């Protein structure tokens, strides 16, 4: 009994930690409990906490997990989703399910080199969407890659998300300025903005809306606040550098 709610709680935790919606985490926990024959089960998930409480034959049990890590790994969300689908159809024993979840939790992300290349490619594509020329495109490749590397290192030293976004945006603006021949390129800020696009909280914004629409108001509003503070950090970081360079005549 104890291990079942532990299992359900872990499944929910993986979803919330990696950028899944709140209702998806709650549904998953309910599916896992139902698969093990626990009928009466209440779950509550927010971006920072998961609570599950069950009543099985008069014996009440509950478990709470605190969520400290918040990342984006939609592959893991997809895998846990498949797991809850599978377990609802063909029951497995607790140890087996435990092993599957541990495997999902340990699934590696793309290698650093791949994500740097992706950021470079995406930034270059965004310079075109913002109306840049070939020089913007080429500088975008370099600046986008550099910014990704920097973000990776900032994440490694476990800075808080606000400071990471503030520093990242400032760095993107400085790099954009440097790689446009010290700002002599027309509309050089296109490069900086294109690089910053990789930090725009698209997933958090989407989840904030989907959570609110599903009636999970606590999660919806806290994710909305998170998205808003990230955008504020980005704008302050980039804005400060742009103003400073503008004053210097860049």
């Amino acid at each position: 009994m104890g291990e079942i709610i532990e299992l359900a709680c872990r499944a929910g935790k993986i979803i919330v930690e990696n950028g899944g919606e709140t209702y998806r985490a709650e549904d998953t926990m309910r599916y896992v409990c139902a698969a093990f024959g626990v009928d009466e089960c209440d779950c509550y998930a927010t971006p920072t906490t998961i609570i599950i409480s069950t009543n099985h034959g008069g014996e009440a049990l509950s478990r709470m997990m605190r969520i400290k890590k918040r990342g984006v790994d939609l592959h893991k969300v997809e895998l846990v989703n498949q797991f809850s689908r599978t377990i609802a159809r063909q029951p497995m024993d607790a140890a087996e399910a435990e092993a599957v979840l541990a495997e999902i939790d340990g699934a590696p992300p793309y290698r650093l080199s791949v994500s740097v290349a992706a950021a470079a490619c995406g930034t270059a594509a965004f310079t075109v969407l913002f109306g840049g020329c070939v020089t913007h495109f080429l500088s975008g490749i370099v600046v986008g890659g550099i910014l990704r590397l920097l973000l990776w290192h900032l994440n490694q030293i476990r800075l808080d998300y606000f400071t990471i976004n503030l520093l990242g945006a400032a760095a993107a603006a400085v790099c954009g300025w440097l790689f446009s021949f010290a700002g002599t390129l027309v509309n050089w800020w296109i490069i900086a903005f294109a690089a910053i696009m990789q930090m725009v909280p698209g997933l958090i914004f989407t989840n904030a809306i989907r959570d609110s629409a599903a009636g999970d108001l606590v999660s919806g509003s806290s994710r909305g606040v998170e998205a808003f503070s990230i955008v504020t950090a980005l704008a302050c970081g980039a804005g400060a550098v742009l103003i400073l360079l503008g004053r210097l005549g860049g």
Partner: protein
Amino acid sequence: MIAKTIFAVIATASFGILFNIRGLNLILAGINGGLGYLIVSVSTAGGAETYIGMFLASIAMTALAEILARYRKAPATVFLAAALIPIVPGGRLFNFVLHLLEGDYQTAAADGITTLLEAGAIAVGIIAVSSFTKVFLARIRKK
């Protein structure tokens, strides 16, 4: 416009990698991003306000994401989150902050209100389609 749409597909798929989307889903997410960008471009070129284009785009993208989610047995977010990035009013938001910092409050206010309208239009589009899908699917399951 078509060339830019292709770049929007590339941009979405690249950022999809940063979200750790894998395999065919990555390409499908990219196509969804291109679709959104194309709709915004076409409606803006047709003279509509940008927020109308964004509303239409977010409806189409959410619908496609929900359909893909059923076919690929993956959460709809996979096909939606990265795809929204090319159409979110990021550029205008930065203009808002820049004008604010420069002390040009009138331009800043105009940018700020437009940003709110655009973000709101995207949000309403997503909510409308997600809620409709839920009701629709519940109906089908009952039958």
